[in-house]
């Protein structure tokens, strides 16, 4: 594919009655890692959810293209089948559905092909090894009674198993201790470096970026992209915070 993987042009969106994003342009090519930073309430999660097709968010203007195809009106399941993924800020608890059977169903349904069990088990084991997850994990009900760190590990496990072309990580590092961030980062690194997957990392801290190669950084302020730069922009924010972008 020669064109960009994700192309967002002049996108405005919000929840019922309130536009939270205004005229966003964003282009991510295959294998690129983009970082989306910004103060609380800037609209970072709104952008992630809108890109993934959360029906609670409405597009009020502009288009979203994925792999050259206009996906603005597509449901989340179709977007996922095309190769999009989002790691949730607050993964939902689904009682009675085990993590393993969830991942199995997701692979089976999104690919439309029967699952090769032996191969699946091997991949699952390998991914869990990277994330230092105990084998008993996958038998537990999805996210039910999981700690914050366990939920995020389970998200990254799904990322590794579903192997998308683009992963949106919505505050994956928030609320995690240093060790947990390190473990989760290892999973993301595997995805980025070994599989060549593209990333849109939404974060307001930078710990998760320590081990990742960053191509572009975008600063989102009050629903608009205030500045775009390279990896150096992350360091700048690390030192000076968002003050420079929020003034005026």
């Amino acid at each position, binding site marked *: 594919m020669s064109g960009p993987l994700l192309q967002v042009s002049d996108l405005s969106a919000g929840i019922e009655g309130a536009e939270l994003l205004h005229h966003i342009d964003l282009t991510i090519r295959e294998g690129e890692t983009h970082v989306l930073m910004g103060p609380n309430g800037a609209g970072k999660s709104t952008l992630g959810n809108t890109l*993934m*097709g*959360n*029906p*609670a968010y409405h597009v009020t203007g502009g288009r979203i293209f994925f792999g050259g195809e206009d996906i603005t009106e597509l*449901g*989340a*399941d179709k*977007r*996922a*089948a095309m190769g999009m*993924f*989002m790691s*949730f800020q607050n*993964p*939902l608890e*689904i*009682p*009675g*559905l085990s993590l393993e059977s*969830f*991942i199995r*169903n*997701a*692979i089976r*349904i*999104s*690919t439309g092909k029967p699952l090769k069990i032996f191969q699946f088990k091997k991949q699952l084991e390998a991914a869990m090894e990277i994330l230092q997850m105990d084998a008993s994990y996958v038998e537990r*009900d999805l996210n039910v009674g999981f700690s914050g760190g366990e939920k995020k590990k389970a998200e990254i496990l*799904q990322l590794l198993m*579903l192997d998308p072309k683009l992963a949106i990580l919505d505050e994956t590092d928030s609320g995690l201790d240093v060790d947990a961030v390190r473990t989760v980062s290892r999973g993301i690194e595997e995805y980025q470096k070994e599989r060549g997957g593209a990333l849109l990392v939404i974060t307001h801290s930078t710990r998760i970026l320590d081990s990742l190669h960053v191509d572009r950084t975008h600063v989102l302020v009050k629903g608009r992209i205030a500045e775009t730069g390279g990896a150096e922009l992350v360091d700048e924010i690390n030192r000076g915070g968002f003050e420079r972008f929020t003034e005026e």
Partner: protein
Amino acid sequence: MTQIKDIDRSLYDFKDDESDFYRLQEGLTEETVRRISGEKHDPAWMLEHRLRSLELYNKIPVPDWGPSIDGLDMDHISSYVRANTDMKGTWEEVPEDIRNTFEKLGIPQAERRSLAGVGAQYDSELVYHNVREEVAQQGVVYTDMESALTGEYADMVREHFMKLVPPSDHKFAALHGAVWSGGSFVYVPKNVKVEIPLQSYFRLNAKGAGQFEHTLIIVDEGADLHFIEGCSAPKYNVANLHAGCVELYVSKGARLRYSTIENWSKNMYNLNTKRAVVEEDARMEWVSGSFGSHVSYLYPTTILKGDRSYCEFTGITFAGNGQNLDTGAKMIHIGKDTSSYINSKSVSKDGGISTYRSSIQIAKSAKGSKSTVDCASLMLDDISRSDTIPAMDIRTMDADVGHEAKIGRISDEAVFYLMSRGIDEAQARAMIVSGFADSVSKELPLEYAAEMNNLIRLEMENT
């Protein structure tokens, strides 16, 4: 065996002070009842029982609480009964949605006809006979109710038949007493452990089974049985009234597990009565799935009579469009240190109404008793309803009673979460509902659990 005669009758005796309600029923006549009795070659006491029940039936008013049963033509009740004794009907009359369900569940042709109540040929009859042989070697009696009346255990049957659910209990118990037909009798002798679950599934083709069938199970001291009734394919009857009766006697130190999936066609009024009495150190386990039917009244009742007796009820109800399912459980604690646990789930969708109604009674004698009720309801849209009506009557200070109720809607956020992994909306919803039902399906035998999940999927697809 311990008998139950000494139970406090006032607990369920009908109070006969409502002569105002007396109405002349054109419908059910003595002649009809005599004819049924004659066709079945009843012993004399059974004819008497039927006639006494008929009298009660004519006196007792229609229940004035719960979902409306106005759609039942009580003045022409005999037309429902006639369909029972003379069930013809043709395969072509079976509604299309039911035939489709058979198809989707992959049920063979011969069984479909039988489940639909129109067939005479039934392949599984052979399997049934084989099961009977196997358990017979252990001394277990497993037979149809009619032959039980005159067989080797005739006295035992007579001693127990409608003693736990007397015809005076309510109008449809009286109707059942008058016109009952079909059903199973099981007797498990002392200390016999039946390894394989007995399934009435194999007997569904019995004449009249699935309308006024009577199930009587007696598990003698120290014995162990798992009985499975019904199956998850819809049962279709020409007449749309079901008033079955289940009586379960669990003797000292025995254990009985009774599993059912009731899935009636959606025109059915399901007014079923199920009751168990549990003696000292004995254990009763109910697993109940209620799908289908237009209106259901279903509250399996357990009398924890013996000291340290235990009962656990696990149930799920699924109400869709046009359905009003009023289900729950009743526990009556009489013995000391008795305990009960109710785990109930209900799902409603497309305007369906599901009501959880339970009653916990702890008698003064039941010191040291424990009861826990856990009920959860899931509504799949804004037009469906879910109600919880728990009643408690605690007569001793020395009891530990807990109740937890959760009512919620399916979360859009959760549906989006599953969809973001490539699962389409219908399947995402079905997965959430199956998960919600999981603690119940887990209790079911594997093939029934699988069928129940299929059934949930089918119900969800029909949105």
